[in-house]
């Protein structure tokens, strides 16, 4: 938890959005969605494919404009005349799914400098912040001047994440950052993300369809289904609705099921357990 004095960074206020408004396959991707990101908070945004989570994500840094409703950043309406939306894109860093597919430069270092240069930093500043960003994502020194295309999948992804971090965002939004990585790469990346939150005080929004990914890390979980926000609460409270989650095609963390089974079998255990450590303690508590 970010403490009691939470400061609101970003507000999405009753936004609706529709794709393909005049075409044959129009559909509402977002329907009256309200959503808040606090300073230094780790939010897990969860939903099944097509639930509108990626659409919502793109609304937050003005890549898509809502049909209805508006978005406030630091108390300012981002669609007000004269608002600098490019600066907003710097402050709200967005890492798309498979971000390694956006790489294009000849060296890793130039790749990471692309963002800072675009946002008007001079050469020296860009290089310094690129250097810091590459360090932060844990890439080894020797790959600075390698072509990004020669790196492994996991490393490419780190380069892409570094290229967003280099512009010094205040909120970092990531769409399925662990998709397609092996378990080891997954774990390393999640650790890196957590360390970013702790060392930088960054607010993080992690978009995912997997509960396991976010259960441990998130301060708050937002569940989306068919363009609506269904739950917006602390992880344990959200997981208490595990039956409803299942109906939406989402699953609660595995340990919850174990505990539910135990309870059904007559053991008096808590059922709001999310990870294996907690489960161990709880089981030990009742057997001893």
């Amino acid at each position, binding site marked *: 938890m970010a403490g009691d004095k939470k400061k609101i960074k970003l507000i999405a206020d009753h936004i609706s959005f529709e794709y393909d408004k005049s075409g044959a396959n129009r559909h509402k991707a977002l329907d009256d969605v309200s959503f808040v990101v606090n300073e230094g908070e780790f939010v897990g945004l969860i939903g099944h494919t097509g639930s509108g989570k990626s659409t919502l994500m793109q609304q937050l*840094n003005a*890549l898509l404009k809502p049909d209805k409703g508006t978005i406030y950043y630091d108390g300012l309406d981002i669609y007000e005349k004269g608002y600098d939306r490019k600066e907003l894109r710097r402050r709200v*860093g*967005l890492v*798309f799914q498979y971000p390694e*597919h956006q790489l294009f430069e000849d060296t890793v270092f130039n790749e990471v400098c*692309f963002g800072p240069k675009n*946002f008007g930093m001079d050469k020296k500043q860009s290089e310094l912040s690129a250097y810091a960003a590459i360090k932060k994502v844990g890439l080894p020194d020797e790959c600075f001047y390698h072509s990004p295309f020669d790196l492994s999948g996991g490393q490419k992804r780190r380069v892409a994440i570094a*290229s967003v971090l280099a*512009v010094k965002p205040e909120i970092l939004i990531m769409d399925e950052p662990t998709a397609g990585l092996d378990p080891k790469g997954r774990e390393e990346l999640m650790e890196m993300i957590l360390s970013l939150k702790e060392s930088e005080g960054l607010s993080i929004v992690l978009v995912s369809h997997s509960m396991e990914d976010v259960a441990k890390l998130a301060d708050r979980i937002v569940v989306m289904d068919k363009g609506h926000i269904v739950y917006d609460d602390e992880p344990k409270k959200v997981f208490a609705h595990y039956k409803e989650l299942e109906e939406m095609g989402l699953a609660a963390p595995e340990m919850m099921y174990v505990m539910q089974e135990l309870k059904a079998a007559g053991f008096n255990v808590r059922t709001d357990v999310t990870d294996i450590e907690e489960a161990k303690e709880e089981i030990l508590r009742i057997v001893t």
Partner: protein
Amino acid sequence: MLRDITLGQYYQTESKLHELDPRTKLVGTFVYLISLFVFTNAYVYIFAASFLLLCVLISHIPPTYMIKGMKPIIFLLVFTMVLNMLVTPGEVILTLWKLTITKEGVKQALYMGARLTLLVMGSNMMTLTTTPTRLTNGLERLMAPLKLIKVPVHEIAMMMSIALRFIPILMDETDRIMKAQLARGADFESGNLIKKAKSLVPVLVPLFISAFRRANDLAMAMEARCYHGGKGRTQMKPLKYRPRDFVAYLILILYLAGIILIGRYL
């Protein structure tokens, strides 16, 4: 961003026209397009337009959707019509500064406009009611006799269907890459032409890489399924003419007869 292109897009619905064999529709469209060029006569165009209208009604495609498909050629249409109006010699009806509009010019412009409109709408009718796969399938079968003179018909058809299949995929990909670069502060709008062209590098490089990756994956997948070209290849749903196709051909012949009669004697 790039999603407003309807030219050559399939419109999913159920109708008699959708069910027709793609070969029937290909031949029909071909005959229709030619019929527009054989006679230059107002009655012929009225007849052709009503035939098209009938097709639209049968196809269950909303007329507004048909009109939207005209958008890409609106500039060409206006340009041709204005040019025809100005350069055709004949009886002068209006003089503006150095430009003269003639009676023949207006007539010519109207004919050209009607011809172009019907041409594009007619071919859109076919692509709107036929999936790209069925279309290339039909084309392959129609061109089959060319195999005798060693034309690689199957390969051409396969290349066409792959190209068609990849257009929407690459368009989505472009959209996604552009957004990702926008999020990294790229600017595609401001600056002069050279700066704008340069700003496309961060889009084009990843796009090409992704196209090559996809092509590679596809080749591998085809190889894994033992694809080796058209020889001895059978189809899951072979094209077969049904009674409704013969009815369609009959209507087509009647249409052709009508056009010739009207063109000759009116």
